[in-house]
């Protein structure tokens, strides 16, 4: 029953996304939160220097940095887990001769690249204190557009590769598709407006460390997802595949 298979894979994708989200949450808490706290301290220091009044805290820092962080990261993991599971259903058996695990790993790698790295290189993650609230709408639209372009161009590259493979062979088709992807992304970078709203005096070291932490969180998330979902998908689609156990001892050779 194909529909039941899709449903099962979708559920497993979301569960794998949740598991990956938990690991990413650990990375976020250990690597990311110290930088967020430092940036907020700078932001508040700047606010005090300009006689800014104390704002009433809607959510305390204690909650923001723990339960709030968990909510964001876990929901992100579940959401992308579901989306990539659906992409997996389309891709399995249609992209080369890869089995479930390899397909999941490739999709996770593609997801990390298209969903995060491509937008990140043009509009990198910013800590609190960076970014003008008046331009949030434009920046969100640009970031969303870059995400969408990353995904669409990645899909286009895969389709191009498939079209070229019968004529050029898998290797050259893949190289040309990748080159096309890079060229198209480069054009998007060139034509979309730049954004730089880092306030004067914001420490470059902190900005760099924050962005590295953000990248690390995403790498943990997508890697863990690829491995977890690959395992769960394989278990469902090919339940007979197990590590081959060799028979105990050597086979006795009968003397002639």
């Amino acid at each position, binding site marked *: 029953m*194909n*529909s039941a*298979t*899709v449903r099962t894979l*979708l559920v497993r994708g979301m569960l794998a996304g949740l598991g990956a989200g938990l690991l990413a949450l650990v990375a*976020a808490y250990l690597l*990311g939160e110290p930088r*967020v706290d430092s940036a907020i301290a700078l932001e508040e220091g700047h606010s005090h220097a300009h006689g800014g009044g104390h704002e009433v805290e*809607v*959510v305390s820092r204690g*909650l*923001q*940095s723990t339960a*709030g*962080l*968990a*909510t*964001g*990261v876990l*929901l*992100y993991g*579940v*959401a*992308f887990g*579901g*989306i990539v599971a*659906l992409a997996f*259903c*389309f891709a*399995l*058996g*249609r992209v080369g001769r*890869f*089995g*479930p695990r390899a397909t999941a790993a490739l999709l996770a790698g593609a997801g990390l690249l298209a969903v*995060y790295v491509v*937008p990140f290189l043009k*509009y990198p*993650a*910013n*800590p*609190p204190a960076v*970014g003008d609230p008046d331009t*949030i*709408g434009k*920046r*969100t*639209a640009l*970031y*969303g557009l870059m995400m969408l372009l990353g995904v669409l161009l990645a899909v286009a590259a895969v389709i191009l590769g498939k079209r070229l493979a019968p004529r050029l062979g898998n290797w050259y088709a893949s190289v040309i598709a990748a080159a096309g992807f890079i060229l198209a992304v480069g054009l998007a970078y060139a034509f979309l407006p730049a954004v730089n709203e880092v306030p004067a005096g914001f420490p470059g070291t902190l900005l760099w460390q924050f962005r590295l*932490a*953000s990248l690390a*969180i995403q790498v943990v998330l997508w890697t863990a997802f690829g491995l977890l979902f690959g395992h769960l998908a394989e278990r469902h*689609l*090919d339940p007979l*595949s197990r590590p*081959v156990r060799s028979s105990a001892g050597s086979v006795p*050779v*009968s*003397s002639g």
Partner: protein
Amino acid sequence: MAQSVAPPTTGADTPAALPIRAILPWAVFFGVLMLVLLYFVGAEQGATSVFSGTDVHEWVHDGRHLLGFPCH
């Protein structure tokens, strides 16, 4: 003299593709649902607002920054 040879491990065949018709309903419904989830994590009460106030924004504040979304 009998000589036993280990049977060759067969490489896995390419898995059968799932029919597009079976995938589409799930993809449309859950795809939209997952995108709504991402919207709330990444953009609600920032660039746009479905609900008034700043509670959602403040709650996912740290996650939003660290996941790379523009936050404020």
